[in-house]
């Protein structure tokens, strides 16, 4: 049976890793390949990179660091952030990314999901969804880095992207992101009935939070701060999950 995955997320700006807390107070943390390798050796199952560079600055640096990461890493990695076309996806896959995350562009043009899945196979298409609780919709989808609300019901949108050909959903709770108060378990429960894997993101603060997320339908758990700060080392988290009967790779 597939192991539950533990995934650190690195924010990259202009070819350097930065750490974002609620998308603010950026600080430089080093080279993507260097930091990702630290996680590779620690036993991370994958790495997700979110490139938050402005679009025009991006091209020059992005291919270079993605290629370096592909060369250095012995585990899979996903690159997302500002990807908006089949051509953009092709560029990242050619540079060595295993999967590409699309978010705002998928909302603006849902056909992109189907096109990408047709051309590259659905296994490399990760649709990232930023969702916040909403009195009317239950959960509302936000785009542009979680800043701009849309009319989309997040649960309905998850169904739609799975139907269109997404291979995986990276589901971030905007309400919980950076709070360390735990994942939005109700949202995960809604996602857990999908036929494609779901990565839970936003809110992890303790090892118990990860366990809860995996018990509420997540196939993988993602965090940034907790891992970057060394508050919860990945080997310690995996030992805990295994002790609770979760199947993890060790």
């Amino acid at each position, binding site marked *: 049976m*597939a*192991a539950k995955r533990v995934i650190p997320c690195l924010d990259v700006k202009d070819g350097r890793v930065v750490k974002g807390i609620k998308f603010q107070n950026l600080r430089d943390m080093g080279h993507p*390949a260097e930091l990702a390798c630290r996680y590779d050796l620690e036993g991370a199952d994958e790495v997700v990179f979110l490139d938050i560079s402005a679009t025009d600055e991006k091209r020059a640096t992005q291919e270079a660091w993605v290629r370096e990461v592909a*060369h250095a890493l*012995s585990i899979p990695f996903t690159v997302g952030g500002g990807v908006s076309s089949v051509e953009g996806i092709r560029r990242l896959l050619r540079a060595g*990314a*295993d999967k590409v995350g699309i978010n705002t562009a998928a909302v603006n043009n849902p056909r992109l999901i189907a096109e990408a899945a047709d*051309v590259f*196979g659905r296994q490399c298409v990760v649709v990232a969804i930023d969702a916040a609780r909403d009195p009317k919709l239950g959960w509302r989808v936000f785009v542009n880095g979680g800043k701009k609300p849309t009319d989309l019901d997040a649960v309905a949108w998850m169904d739609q992207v799975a139907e269109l050909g997404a291979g995986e959903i990276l589901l971030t709770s905007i309400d919980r992101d950076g709070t360390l108060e735990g994942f939005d378990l109700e949202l995960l429960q809604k996602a857990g009935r999908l036929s494609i*894997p779901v990565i839970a993101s936003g809110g992890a603060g303790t090892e118990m939070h990860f366990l809860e997320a995996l018990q509420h339908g997540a196939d993988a758990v993602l965090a940034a701060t907790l891992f970057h700060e060394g508050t919860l080392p990945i080997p310690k988290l995996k030992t805990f999950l295994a002790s609770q009967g979760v199947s993890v790779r060790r």
Partner: protein
Amino acid sequence: MITLIDYGAGNLHSLEGALDRLGFPHTRAERPSEAAPSGALVLPGVGHFHAAQMALQSRGWWRDMPQMVADGRPLLGICLGLQLLAEGSEESPKDSGLGLIPGIARRLGPGVKVPLMGWAQVQQQSSHPALPDPKGGWLYFVHSYALETDVETIYTAFHGRTFSAVKARGRVLGFQPHPEKSGPFGLVLLQKTLNWMGETSIDFQEEACN
């Protein structure tokens, strides 16, 4: 010298990175005429069975690969590469595979999430001179279709049902998982396979990430 078959199916960087870390000399070839004069061929692959087959046909590989194997060249298929070496796939029922390894790739499931994207344990079904008993070691899989198990299955994995994780016939060997994406254990398997195929590493670096 290892020849990586480059038919535009995306990512060769990870594989090249793994071979560099293991110290194996390698080259890319878009066409059979560009292949190294001898040594192992590696057929990687992601994407759709039909698209990959068309690309291999247009670059002359589909025609030449069976002859190269008949001439004694070892061939390693990875992921979709393995499925292309088999007899066919439910993903594209009208196309046939190269038939160098028996079996037809059938869709995973029902009752499990497809594609399988992630780490699964492998067990030995039959012994093979290239590969150790994996004893439940973890490898990274990304696929929707898989070959059934039969007498040529070396390793099995389980996702809804038991399927072939490694199959071999003669000097043709295929991995359904990605050994180049499977941490230190995957690299060891890749190294042992290539050694068995007659390749020698010249500068083996024990640690990843250097």
